[in-house]
């Protein structure tokens, strides 16, 4: 019985898959290369930034830094879920093939290394706060570059809309961090 049910479910899924795919067969995909690049780079940048934000949210002496880091983590959590869902739906890898060279010259990926996170982890007091703000500012600048690239070059409207939201959020957070940095 169970096997029979599974078979029916498989057939239904295949039929549904076929009918859903038919329109796509006639037209170009709704997304373009920039959409894919934004999602892949965005996910990598979020993964990097979140390592810094996690430490900053917990250990920064300045409550304003903790607040920004906590806010970032919450927004990134939601944004990255959506970004992964789109890539999976489009049958695209979640990360770009590093050997493909498509990101060559950007230098914006993998800007942070394990040693940087370790440096932050071992810092304390004002040095911790200053390092956390510097690393977050560097990361947010890279996030802004990719979201602005998507706003101008993407094709899929919901992805462009997410990029616009990300640009607005990251710019506001960058403003707040720069005001903190100016007095550090």
């Amino acid at each position, binding site marked *: 019985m169970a096997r029979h049910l599974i078979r029916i479910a498989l057939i239904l899924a295949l039929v549904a*898959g*076929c009918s859903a*795919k038919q329109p*796509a*067969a006639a037209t170009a*995909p709704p997304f*373009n*290369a*920039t959409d*894919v*690049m934004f999602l892949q780079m965005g996910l990598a940048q979020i993964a990097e930034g979140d390592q810094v934000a996690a430490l900053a949210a917990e250990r920064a002496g300045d409550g304003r830094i903790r607040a920004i880091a906590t806010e970032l983590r919450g927004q990134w959590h939601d944004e990255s879920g959506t970004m992964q869902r789109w890539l999976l739906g*489009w*049958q*695209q890898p979640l990360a770009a093939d590093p050997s*493909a060279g*498509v990101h060559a*010259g*950007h*230098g*914006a990926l993998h*800007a*942070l*290394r394990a040693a*940087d996170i370790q*440096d932050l982890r071992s810092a304390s007091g004002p040095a911790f706060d*200053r*390092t956390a*703000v*510097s*690393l977050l*500012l*560097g990361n947010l*600048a*890279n996030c*802004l*570059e*990719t979201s*602005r*690239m998507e706003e*101008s*070059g993407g094709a899929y409207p919901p992805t462009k809309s997410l990029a616009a939201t990300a*640009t607005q959020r990251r*710019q506001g957070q*960058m*403003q707040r961090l*720069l*005001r903190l*940095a*100016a*007095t*550090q």
Partner: protein
Amino acid sequence: MRRRFILPALTVAAITASLLVAVAPASAHGYISSPPSRQANCASGAVAGCGDIIYEPQSVEAPKGSKLCNGGGSRFAVLNDTSKAWPYAGVGKTVTFNWIITARHATTTWEYFIGNTLLASFNDNGAQPGATKQHTVSMGSFTGRQTILARWNIADTANAFYSCVDVNIGGGSTTPPTTPPTTTPTTAPTTAPTTNPPTTTPTGTWRAGTAYKVGDVVTYNGVSYRCRQAHTAIAGWEPPNVPALWLAI
């Protein structure tokens, strides 16, 4: 049915091919955050009307050797605008400069100038910088308000990254502490004129020690300014220095 399995492969091929010609983001790299450079003051909102630099303060890249704050390129010329009210950061005789690095280029030198005087040069011998970078530089015999030009010279390109930092050596900051920057929205200029016609209520020449209220109009060096938020003026908060407090009209 068979086509179903071919399509994704075709799509992937098309995407891969088009990735090679995809829109590339502006290349990014670094700037000084503390004391705030001009691009940092733009990006933080402390100085308004800067244009696109607010999104990419790290992108002031131009051929090596320039003495201009924007490196002499056509982009970001606003950074060279001496009529703009750049705040001066109060500093001591030595200053620690803090860089935000967004891409780690192999580096020849980091140079710091006031005018034609080289204050300091740090030779990295082609090494890549860390994720953050700090230099402590003596201001030598310079005092008062100065503009420091910092150049990050890249080892494997013909370019450098430029940051200008306005400082008041041995003096106080001209930027009011913390509250005015939070209220420097760019909307203020559009709303103020409707409520305060520019031609009315001049209250004379700007003077330290005077309590000003919103809408007061003063003149300073022949230019009229309208007060954007109530405050008591002090030396260093001259209208052209503090756009958060005074709007040129």
